[in-house]
């Protein structure tokens, strides 16, 4: 099966897991951004374009279940995944424990971008200190899930293509 096609069921599974399982598994009162973590993993293995497309699609699917305007998660995930894919050549290719850092930094960046876009589109309730706590806690949760997601991506797509 072409690699891109393998990402379609992964994307669907990620959205389903995010909306049906993780609301029951809140940590410090927040849910993780599983779609963002998956997009980071795709960007790492397949490059910035693939990561951006995957993040956009998964974020859009997640947005359909949220009360905030549709498209905010999509563009946030896409930009963060693209950024990781772009800086990947700076690393020697082994990801290991770096996934924790990618998950945390990606979660922070994604949360901040989401809040900025939400405020710009008129979702005023995010303009409060509580939003900062939510973004940090969510990024911590993302960091914990990142090694699992990177490992899963490495398993289901065992021979990553060269993208640069």
């Amino acid at each position, binding site marked *: 099966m072409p690699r891109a096609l393998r990402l379609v069921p992964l994307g669907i599974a990620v959205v389903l897991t995010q909306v049906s399982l993780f609301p029951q*598994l809140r940590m410090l009162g927040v*849910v993780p951004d599983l779609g963002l973590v998956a997009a980071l993993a795709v960007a790492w293995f397949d490059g910035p374009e693939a990561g951006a497309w995957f993040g956009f699609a998964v974020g859009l699917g997640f947005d*359909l*279940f949220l009360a905030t305007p*549709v*498209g905010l998660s999509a*563009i946030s995930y896409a*930009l963060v995944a693209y950024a990781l894919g772009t800086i990947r050549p700076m690393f020697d290719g082994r990801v290991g424990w770096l996934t924790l850092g990618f998950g945390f930094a990606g979660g922070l960046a994604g949360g901040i971008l989401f809040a900025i876009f939400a405020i710009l589109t008129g979702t005023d*309730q995010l303009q409060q200190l509580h939003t900062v706590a939510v973004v940090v806690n969510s990024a911590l949760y993302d960091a914990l899930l990142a090694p699992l997601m990177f490992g899963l991506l490495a398993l289901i797509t065992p021979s990553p293509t060269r993208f640069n």
Partner: protein
Amino acid sequence: MADSVRGRRRRYILVVMALTALTLATLSQRDGDSGPIGAAGGVAHRVVQPVTDAADSAFGPLHDWWHGFWHHGDVVSQNRKLREELQQALAENSGKTDAIEKLRELDAFFNQTYWSDYKSTGASVVGDSPGNNETTVTINRGSESGVRVGMAVVGVGGLIGTILQTWHGGSKVLLINDPSFGVGARTLLDDRFGTAATDDEGVLRVTFPANGQPKHLSPKIANGDEIVTCGCYGSLLPPGIPIGQVTNVSVAFDASSVRVAVAPTLDLPSLQYVKVILWKPGDPTQASVTEKLAEGAAHPTTTTTTTIPGASTTTSTTTKTAGG
């Protein structure tokens, strides 16, 4: 050269994505639940609902364990309290069964008080907020039961939120403690109108315009007063639905308004059953509600108020002259 072309292509893709996201966000903001984006959301909820229900059943024990892990202290104290209550209940009513208790609880819920006459449909809470930036729950009644966006959702004690989105078989409820929630409100025993909304600190507050004469207003509002929906012109909610009880009264520094903190009736952890009030603007107000509100106006309260100079808090003592 090839790198340059690839770089331009990547940037082009990001620009297309950004424009698409902006367009979608604008459309969803403008059209809400009635537009194509809202319809897509409804379809998505409908498709995923069976998966969510299955996950609820399958991962229920995992959820309980997880919740217990993160809220161990709460669980222990709740457990102790429940044991004490159980012992007390067993001693007092050894013949009662859980089923009878549950039946009575539900009976009380569905035949509550003066505002129970509004036409409604019962529903179960089947899901929590999927994201971090909203305070919502999902219920298992939707458009097939006559549920529409904006309708009031009530729990045992009164208003818990409004319908945010609805589809066949389910609805999303925006809870009263979400910062984006707002509703026209009044005190039950006085016809002063204000706006109830949850502030940044998570406290539900009602602001009553005072027009520079707070003393004319604040004496009529005191701790313990019941705040209800006003059903004012343009409001999507019917009048007379309890929102909560006043816990603090304060006057704005410029005397332009009186702000009261309200303890809402919402008890989120124990929220299992709700009712959706099937009332739309233009529908008649139930006679029992009209009578209750008129009763309050006919028997106003007399209150002694002490305002501390330079401070914003007033201390009130309320005496009901009759009825109420």
